[in-house]
């Protein structure tokens, strides 16, 4: 994206201002979350009860582990956007019906709005920020550009994540398999045809 488009004349971008204002105040640590790996090896009879206030939550996002404090009731989507400041993952329906919030969890697509962040502890999370960069697009992202596979662009991060997962699992999908692969992603502009062509194009290039 052209950087100027995001920045105000004063040099403070709307997005960065909002991010700063939204930063949570420091809250007392309540308890550590047992990771999935640790489960079952604890002998205590009383289960860990977290919250409702903030607790440290360590997530591995795009290969980097970070501990950030947030309430245990935080969804993975809100954790990524509001706390990790990764705003590529979009919030649209917030009910698991549109796919704009799609991320990879251990390589499989999930709606990040419909799960708790604490249930992603110990797992590999990949957001659209972890798939290519503006300077180094993946073949699929380049194909989205070349095939004009977006209009307003709001569904695009989720589409890219879903199509990346599809090509990882099946490098040569047919049209029906592509349709199945993006069945959980809604494009309100109706650009499906170009998205399907972009996936076919990336597939022919042998890329992902």
């Amino acid at each position, binding site marked *: 994206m052209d950087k100027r488009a995001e920045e105000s004349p004063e040099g403070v971008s709307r997005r960065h201002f909002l991010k700063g204002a939204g930063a949570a105040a420091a809250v007392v640590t309540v308890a550590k979350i*047992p990771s999935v790996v640790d489960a079952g090896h604890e002998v205590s009879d009383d289960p860990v009860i*977290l919250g*409702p206030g903030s607790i440290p939550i360590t997530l591995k996002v795009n290969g980097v582990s970070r501990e950030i404090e947030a309430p245990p*009731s935080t969804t993975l989507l809100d954790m990524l956007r509001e706390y990790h400041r990764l705003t590529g993952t979009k919030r649209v329906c917030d009910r698991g019906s549109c796919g704009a919030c799609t991320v990879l969890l251990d390589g499989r697509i*999930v709606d990040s709005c419909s799960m*708790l962040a604490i249930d992603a502890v110990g797992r590999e999370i990949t957001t659209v920020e972890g798939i290519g960069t503006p300077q180094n697009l993946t073949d699929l992202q380049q194909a989205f550009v070349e095939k004009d596979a977006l209009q307003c662009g709001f569904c695009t991060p989720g589409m890219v994540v879903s199509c990346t997962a599809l090509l990882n699992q099946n490098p040569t999908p047919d049209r029906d398999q592509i349709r199945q692969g993006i069945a959980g992603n809604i494009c309100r502009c109706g650009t499906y045809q170009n998205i399907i062509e972009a996936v076919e194009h990336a597939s022919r290039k042998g890329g992902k």
Partner: protein
Amino acid sequence: MRQFKVALPNSIEQASALQKSVDVPFIAGGTDLLARIKEYIDTPDLVVDLKRIEGLGEITSTGQGIRIGALVTMDDVATNRLVAEGFPALVETIGNAATPQIRNMATIGGNICQKPRCWYLRHEGYSCAKNGGSGCWAREGENEFHAIFGNQVCAVTHPSNMAPVLVAYGASIEIQSSESKSSDGTLEKRQVEAEQFFLTPEQDPTREVALKPGEIVTAVLLPAKNRTDQWSYAEAREKQSFDWAQASVTVLYQRGGRSGDHRVILGAVSPAPLRRADLEEIIGSRALDADCIQALQEKIGEGAHPLSQNGYKVPMLRGLMAKAIRNLNGEKKEG
């Protein structure tokens, strides 16, 4: 979203003991519960997260059949070799459900315990028989997708695509609770046949499944004896993704069998999956020909009481019934 505490039990006993009232919900995949909390339909102060309990995430062969742990995701059920070999109708019905993302998250235990999708029930402003009040708004209101059978007390349809297929296969639901321990201190396992697990509003309008407070679904058990069946699953829905069936017909057919050997289960037309012994009787030991299809079509609407907007479900069922029988015959599969 409203904030709440989250308990992380590491055993079924811990989780069960925590659920002291129905206001403390369990969370597994989260796809249904979190949406209800966001809509203020459920306002729990504490949610019990089942994800860290070991032993609930595997599909295993038991000798008598297969055991699907309650935390196995829908996609892992649908892509499992044991399931595909023995229970192909389950693979078919899961493939039609929700979206790829949801199928990677939602668990089989949560799927069979999800709340119905009635828009009155899922609106914080309506009180009805199902949430502790009285009456059913859908009966006189907007009821296009509601039940045509068994809808006098409450007209919800059962939302699980899998449920009618589980009933057809004679599945059992394995349930455990901290209340019932055997002499060595381990939790006893109660088994309820799927047909009895799903409750009708006449049995109890406030519950969809036969779980008491503190009881947890730990597995779905599928008996091996159905492996030779021919099967067919036909459904209709308005949209091919993130939607619920308007009607479905599951048929298991035992070649050379008699009426009691077949299964005909209707889905999405009643508050609980609807087994139709009268249709199984018609199939009986006769040829699956045009006469058989006609007899089934004449019978299938019997007992239906359509509401103002859902009368279309009766002819829809007739069409699905014919499609299901033709697909059983090995004719080209219709989509």
